[in-house]
């Protein structure tokens, strides 16, 4: 017997049938039928946020950490527009997400009704796809399609805009959740072209100065383990993008760290000198390439990407391979193995020479990961030291989210990620206010895990209302606030490019007492000002004592510190400033 359900009930039932465990949302008029349906069931848990932007970041953090799509529910008008920043964030980083927005009743659409906004129109440039639901009967198929589109191919956010009349409890329709879906106009590649993969293998075998350049696609595409195995087998150096951190173990000797604007000296030099670049799930972003005209002049470029439009967009690929990173590498591995058993490492001597050169770069100008060894307990804390202390206190085993700015780069440079999906940040869009809600999404997904949010006071204040949500749901997140009383990255650029004129990048006199602030939200606040206090405070924050509490470490760091290396604008990848002395 076919069940008959109202649109509101169908929507929630379809989410259950999709295996959704959490919805991050905020109610409002146009979504109330749906909220009533939520009230009358137990299988999907709704998390009440304090701002819709935060709901999208929570769903995003959940998706990045688990690989499963995040789900958001908001009402029409301002509820929907508030969600846009988070949708755009997910879009830029290819994160699977389904956002359900209430809409005014169908007969009021287009009349400038109360809380009406054209959500499909407003969100169009920042979604993978969107649906405006016409009738309750369409809901099961629309939801099925939405999840399929969000999670397949190059993942991304999908919006389902639902007019209120469609969820009317008085109107029911037969409900049957589709088992499968096929769209004639959407057929993402499931595997790479064998001939192209063979060409890539031949190029890899000939390489004398190879670099593997791994991006977020390796993490999102669940290819980290296999890529690591292949890289180890070949003894090739690996550099990762900001989005790719953790795709290859950071503590492995073959890991060169991050590349690009704030990438390591050894990464950027290796890229520039490489004769072969194997790019996997990376998109040659402008923050990586610096001046595309001067990019890696000697390199043959093999580019594996699920999205054909990412290939040869910025840098022409010599050997393009369209397909999921995992499937392509699965096909590549036995071919490589065959090649290696037949001929051995093609040019072991050249590779050894290459490693010598790389290790030279690493030794001469690599990052200093031992800054905590400094002994003066009264010294100002350097932000890098705070991240190193975090690494030490968590034994490198935390999920780390970040906001955007200097603290983000310090976290990316100094927290050693040995596993994928542990580093969660807004790479493409660079969304301040991402860190705390993203950490919440991760903590919901993994209640027992250690989740740290490395933030700055500027970013933190963009979504700090979620401290209330953290209290409501008892989320024991640890916030490490690198407080420099300034919009640090803005200030750094002003120092470097605007003669030190700090136009609207400081607000020292107007900052709240963060300890009192978080205490008023029912959490634990600890103020840290001197180097001697740093490690004890960090250890305490992550101790058993606070296992169930949110702890906010307000770490006052040296505000003069800049992020280095920093790419020199218009240059090649190896053109970078390495210290403040060079920029003055």
């Amino acid at each position, binding site marked *: 017997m076919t069940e008959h359900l109202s649109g509101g009930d169908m929507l929630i039932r379809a989410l259950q049938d999709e295996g959704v465990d959490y919805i991050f949302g905020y109610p409002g008029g146009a979504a109330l039928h749906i909220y009533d349906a939520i009230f009358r069931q137990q299988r999907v848990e709704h998390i009440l946020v304090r701002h819709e932007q935060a709901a999208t970041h929570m769903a995003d953090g959940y998706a990045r950490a688990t690989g499963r799509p995040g789900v958001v529910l908001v009402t029409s008008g301002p509820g929907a527009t508030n969600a846009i920043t988070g949708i755009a964030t997910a879009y830029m980083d290819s994160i699977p997400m389904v956002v359900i927005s209430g809409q005014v009743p169908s007969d009021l659409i287009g009349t400038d009704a109360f809380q009406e906004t054209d959500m*499909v*129109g407003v969100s*169009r*440039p920042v979604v*993978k*796809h*969107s649906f*405006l639901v016409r009738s309750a009967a369409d809901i099961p198929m629309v939801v099925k399609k939405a999840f399929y*589109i969000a999670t397949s191919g190059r993942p991304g956010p999908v919006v389902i805009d639902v007019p209120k009349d469609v969820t009317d409890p008085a109107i029911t329709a037969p409900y049957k959740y589709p088992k499968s879906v096929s*769209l*004639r*106009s*959407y057929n993402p590649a499931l595997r790479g072209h064998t001939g192209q993969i063979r060409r890539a293998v031949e190029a890899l075998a000939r390489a004398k100065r190879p670099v593997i350049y791994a991006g977020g696609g390796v993490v999102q595409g669940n290819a980290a383990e296999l890529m690591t195995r292949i890289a180890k087998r070949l003894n090739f150096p690996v550099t990762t993008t900001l989005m790719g951190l953790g795709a290859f173990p950071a503590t492995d000797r073959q890991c060169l760290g991050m590349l690009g604007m704030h990438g390591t000296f050894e990464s950027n030099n290796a890229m520039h000198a490489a004769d072969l670049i194997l790019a996997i799930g990376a998109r040659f972003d402008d923050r990586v390439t610096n001046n595309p005209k001067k990019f890696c002049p000697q390199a043959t470029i093999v580019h594996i990407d699920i*999205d*054909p*439009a990412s290939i*040869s*967009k910025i840098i*022409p690929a010599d050997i393009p391979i369209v397909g999921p990173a995992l499937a392509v590498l699965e096909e590549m591995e036995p071919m490589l193995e065959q090649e290696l058993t037949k001929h051995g490492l093609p040019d072991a001597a050249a590779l050894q020479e290459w490693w010598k050169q790389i290790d030279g770069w690493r030794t001469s100008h690599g990052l200093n990961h031992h800054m905590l060894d400094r002994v003066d307990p009264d010294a100002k804390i350097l932000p890098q030291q705070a991240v190193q202390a975090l690494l030490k206190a968590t034994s490198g085993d935390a999920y780390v989210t970040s906001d955007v700015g200097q603290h983000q780069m310090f976290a990316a440079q100094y927290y050693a990620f040995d596993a994928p999906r542990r580093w969660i940040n807004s790479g493409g869009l660079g969304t301040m206010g991402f860190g705390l809600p993203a950490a919440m999404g991760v903590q919901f997904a993994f209640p027992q895990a250690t989740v740290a949010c490395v933030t700055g006071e500027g970013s933190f204040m963009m979504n700090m209302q979620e401290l209330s949500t953290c209290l409501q749901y008892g989320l024991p997140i640890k916030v490490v606030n690198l407080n420099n009383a300034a919009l640090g990255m803005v200030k750094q650029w002003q120092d470097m490019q605007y003669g030190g004129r700090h136009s609207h990048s400081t607000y020292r006199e107007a900052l709240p007492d963060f300890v009192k602030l978080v205490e008023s939200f029912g959490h634990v606040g600890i103020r840290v000002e001197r180097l001697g206090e740093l490690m004890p405070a960090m250890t305490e924050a992550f101790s058993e004592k606070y296992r169930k509490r949110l702890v906010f470490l307000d770490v006052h760091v040296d505000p003069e510190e800049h992020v280095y290396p920093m790419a020199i604008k218009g240059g090649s990848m190896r053109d970078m400033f390495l210290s403040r002395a060079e920029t003055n």
Partner: protein
Amino acid sequence: MRRIIAVLLENEAGALSRVVGLFAQRNYNIETLTVAPTEDETLSRLTVTTTGDASKIEQITKQLNKLIEVVKVMDLTDGDHVERELMLIKVRAEGTTRAEIKRTTDIFRGQIIDVTDTTYTVQLTGPSEKLDGYIGAIGKAIVLEVVRSGVSGIGRGEKILGL
């Protein structure tokens, strides 16, 4: 480089806005755009003319293909094709110029489809350059109103854009 790109699109509400939005969002140029349902009512066919170098055109076709509702994309200018545009043009036609306009229209194989004491309305089809040529020949000074359909195009011979 001018390119004619043909797109088969799901005939659904909002699909066209995604195509147009894509061009605006990514700073691609649209010179002309035509769209109408095909013999299969679930599909629309859209023809867009644009300009750009090879890599830009490659990006345009790839980005179009990424739109969920886009079924197929073909760059007609990659091969032999036929292109046509329809123009309705109203011109000032008085005294001695009337005969002259009639003669020019005949040369261009146009038809005068509406006549008043003072105006002619001419219908002309052909490649875009032919329509430009006609306007040049009769002289801009007497042109009152121009309506152009934008380019429609189709591949020659066995080259077919279909499901």
